[in-house]
């Protein structure tokens, strides 16, 4: 069944259900027909038979009653009326018998009818006899006859009729039973049939549905997965129906997608060497992918070569910028040093200028002071001379006194004992004179020295004044030229500063350029690295044209790092001492050099 087409499967399913329905219908029809037949038998045979017989019976009973009435009747008219009724009934009964004759069901029924007709005849005979008697008003005889003949025949007749009815009822019952049986049968048959039909239908439907939905569900799930991007699944194809075909198509679709995905994967992994396998001419995705791949190859190729160019270019630029930067920083250092020197010199010159100015001022004041001093000295000299003169007189007097006293002492001595008293006086006088002489001499010496010094000082001062003037003038000149120098050197210094600033800025710019260039170079390398991710040809991925400079002079300065400064903590500790055995005998690097 699995390999059946779904249409066939459904057709078969429906056919089966229809067959069951038809069977069921036929069965129901047959059953209904049987019921109909039973019913028809009852309605068209049994019931009319019974009705007819019942009519016959009732009329027989009326006839019987009429006969009795006839007997009882005493006039002709009544008799005639009764006879009329009898005749009508008899006629009706005859008709009914005829009617029943057509309703005879079977031979037994015929037998029964025959018997009833026999009985009727007997009865009729008896009745006519009676009637005949009655009409002659021979009631007694009639009654006797009734009893003797009519009633038994009447009873037989009724019996016969009753038998017919009973038989018909029996037949009717039989038919009814048959109908009931049929109905029961058809009901159960239909129920069974319907249940069976339902079950079978359901089963078939379930199977068909299953056979469609299960593969469809897996296909749907697969399509869902594919829609979600999962291409790892492969559907099992275990039928050759449409679903199987769909599944197979799905599988090939997934396979195709997988192929595309592999290519996309390769592209994602940078491998542009794989070609896209076109599934058909209408494979738009494939076409797009192929186009994309081609474009990518082209772009990557271009970018790659551009990146190589940029990398080598920026490497060169970086190197140049580095050189430039180093040059600039060297220049900057020189400029910095020059500026600092110039500043220092300017400061010195400024100081000189200041000093000169101060000296000039001092010299001016000194000249002034010297002049004043000169005058004071002259006055002093004059005063001292005067004092000296006065002192000279005193000295003179003292000397004279001394001399006189001395001579007096000599005289006294020579006078011997007579001069003793005088000698004492003379000695006293001489001592006084000597003291005043000493004092005068001291004053004289002092004033003399003072005068001489003052003279000398005066002379010097007098001589000094023009010297100082001259010096002051010279100092003024120095101050002026220092001022000029200061202005000049300040200008130079300022110019140097500006130059320095420019150079420092240049250095800064060069540094920044070097930095930028290096950054650029590294980015170019990065770009190269990035682009080398793509494999355009089957040759190995293009290696970066420029190797990473592991030992960029800027990034790592090779050095033996000395411990950082401060020995501040332990003053007096010897940290540096000349090593007399310190011997550089040359090292391996000397081999790279030779003498001039």
């Amino acid at each position, binding site marked *: 069944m699995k390999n059946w087409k779904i249409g066939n499967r459904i057709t078969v399913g429906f056919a089966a259900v229809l067959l069951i329905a038809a069977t069921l219908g036929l069965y129901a029809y047959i059953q209904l027909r049987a019921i109909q037949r039973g019913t028809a038998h009852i309605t068209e045979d049994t019931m009319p038979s019974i009705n007819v017989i019942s009519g016959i019976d009732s009329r027989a009973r009326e006839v019987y009653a009429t006969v009795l009435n006839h007997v009882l009747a005493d006039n002709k008219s009544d008799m005639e009326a009764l006879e009329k009724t009898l005749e009508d009934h008899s006629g009706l009964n005859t008709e009914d018998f005829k009617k029943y004759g057509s309703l005879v069901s079977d031979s037994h029924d015929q037998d029964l009818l025959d018997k009833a007709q026999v009985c009727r005849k007997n009865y009729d005979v008896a009745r006519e006899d009676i009637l005949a008697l009655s009409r002659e008003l021979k009631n007694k005889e009639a009654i006797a006859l009734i009893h003797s003949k009519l009633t038994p025949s009447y009873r037989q007749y009724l019996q016969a009729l009753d038998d017919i009815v009973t038989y018909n009822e029996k037949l009717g019952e039989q038919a009814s039973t048959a109908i009931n049986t049929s109905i029961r049968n058809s009901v159960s048959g239909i129920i069974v049939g319907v249940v069976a039909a339902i079950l079978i239908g359901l089963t078939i439907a379930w199977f068909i549905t299953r056979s469609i939905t299960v593969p469809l569900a897996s296909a749907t799930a697969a399509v869902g997965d594919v829609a979600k991007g999962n291409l790892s699944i492969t559907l099992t194809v275990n039928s050759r129906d449409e679903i199987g075909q769909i599944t197979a198509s799905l599988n090939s679709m997934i396979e195709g997608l997988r192929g595309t995905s592999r290519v996309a994967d390769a592209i994602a992994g940078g491998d542009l060497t794989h070609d896209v396998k076109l599934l058909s001419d209408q494979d738009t995705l494939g076409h797009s992918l192929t186009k994309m791949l081609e474009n990518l190859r082209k772009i990557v190729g271009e970018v790659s070569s551009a990146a190589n160019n940029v990398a080598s270019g920026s490497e060169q630029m970086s190197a140049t910028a580095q050189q430039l930067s180093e040059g600039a*920083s060297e220049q900057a250092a020189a400029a910095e040093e020059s500026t600092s020197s110039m500043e220092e*010199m300017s400061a010195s010159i400024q100081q000189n200028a200041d000093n000169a100015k101060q000296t000039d001022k001092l010299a001016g004041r000194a000249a002034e002071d010297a002049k004043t001093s000169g005058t004071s000295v002259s006055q002093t000299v004059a005063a001292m001379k005067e004092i000296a003169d006065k002192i000279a007189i005193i000295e003179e007097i003292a000397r004279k006194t001394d001399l006189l006293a001395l001579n007096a002492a000599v005289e006294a001595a020579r006078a011997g004992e007579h001069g003793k008293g005088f000698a004492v006086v003379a000695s006293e006088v001489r001592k006084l004179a000597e003291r005043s002489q000493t004092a005068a001499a001291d004053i004289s010496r002092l004033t003399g020295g003072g005068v001489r010094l003052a003279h000398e000082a005066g002379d010097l001062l007098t001589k000094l004044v023009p010297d100082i003037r001259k010096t002051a003038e010279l100092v003024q000149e120095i101050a002026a030229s220092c001022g000029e120098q200061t202005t000049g050197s300040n200008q130079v210094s300022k110019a140097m500063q500006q130059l320095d600033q420019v150079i420092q800025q240049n250095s800064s710019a060069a540094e920044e350029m070097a930095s930028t260039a290096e950054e*650029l170079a590294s980015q170019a390398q990065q770009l190269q690295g990035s682009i080398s991710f793509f494999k355009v040809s089957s040759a190995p991925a293009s290696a970066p044209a420029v190797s990473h400079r592991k030992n960029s002079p800027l990034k790592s*300065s*090779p*050095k033996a*790092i000395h411990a950082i400064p401060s020995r501040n903590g332990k003053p007096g500790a010897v940290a*540096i001492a*000349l090593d007399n055995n310190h011997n550089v005998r040359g090292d391996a690097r000397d081999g790279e050099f030779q003498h*001039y």
Partner: protein
Amino acid sequence: MSILPPPPETSEILQLTPESFARFAAFITKTLGIKMSENKIPMLQSRLQRRMRARGLRNIDRYRDFLFNSTEGDAELVDFIDAVTTNKTDFFREPHHFNYLRRTALPTLDTDPERPWHFKLWCAGCSTGEEPYTLSMVLSEHAAERTGFDFTILATDISTRVLQTAREAVYDEPRIEPVADELRKKYLLRSRSPGRNLVRIVPGLRRHVQFNRLNFMDADYGVADMFDAIFFRNVMIYFDKPTQEAVIRKLCRNLKPGGYLFVGHSESLIGIDVPVRMVASAVYQKPLSVA
């Protein structure tokens, strides 16, 4: 394709904010004694950019935080000092001093030409070594004429980078231009590979020079020896007056009485109180007896 990061903002790198400058300047002045006026912003900027770049930081403010506030800041300090110090030097720079040393200072100090004499010289602020090697040449020339003369040069600098270069003693050929031909023949080696214009100082000259790191801002230099002469040229120009005075005083502790102190020609000791007196242009001498 957004493989590449966006290029860094130029202005972002460039910015050395006044606050950052003030912070750096204060630190540099305190640690190195180098005066930093606002004029130095471009200089500091360009120098810090190198460090910033080397550390892979995106702007100077981050570099500042890295230097001052991170645990790796200490390791960076050496490089920072290297970056912010100026190292300008040449062979036979300001040659007047070398003549003075040969013609005047050495004969003056050489009290007894018969005795063996070990001359000690300190080249303070030696930068990349041109000056100590120049001195080594000059003193070697002197040793050729005066028997029993030997010498040692102590060369110090704060920057380990320049000391490394100095120890290596390899220079670009254009740098030796001031070196006279006969001295080149004696004291220089040239690269064997013709493409590389490099020269190197002969081992015989390097032997006399000992390099050590020294920060002039240290309270005590811890130098054991006493020197006959100290070359301290073109370093003071970066210092302010009080620092100049303090440094000169500390240097003079290791200067023998009668020893010479050479400073840069633009430098002077006018207006600072130091125990030396001027004997020639930018040459000072320590009196034999300090009163």
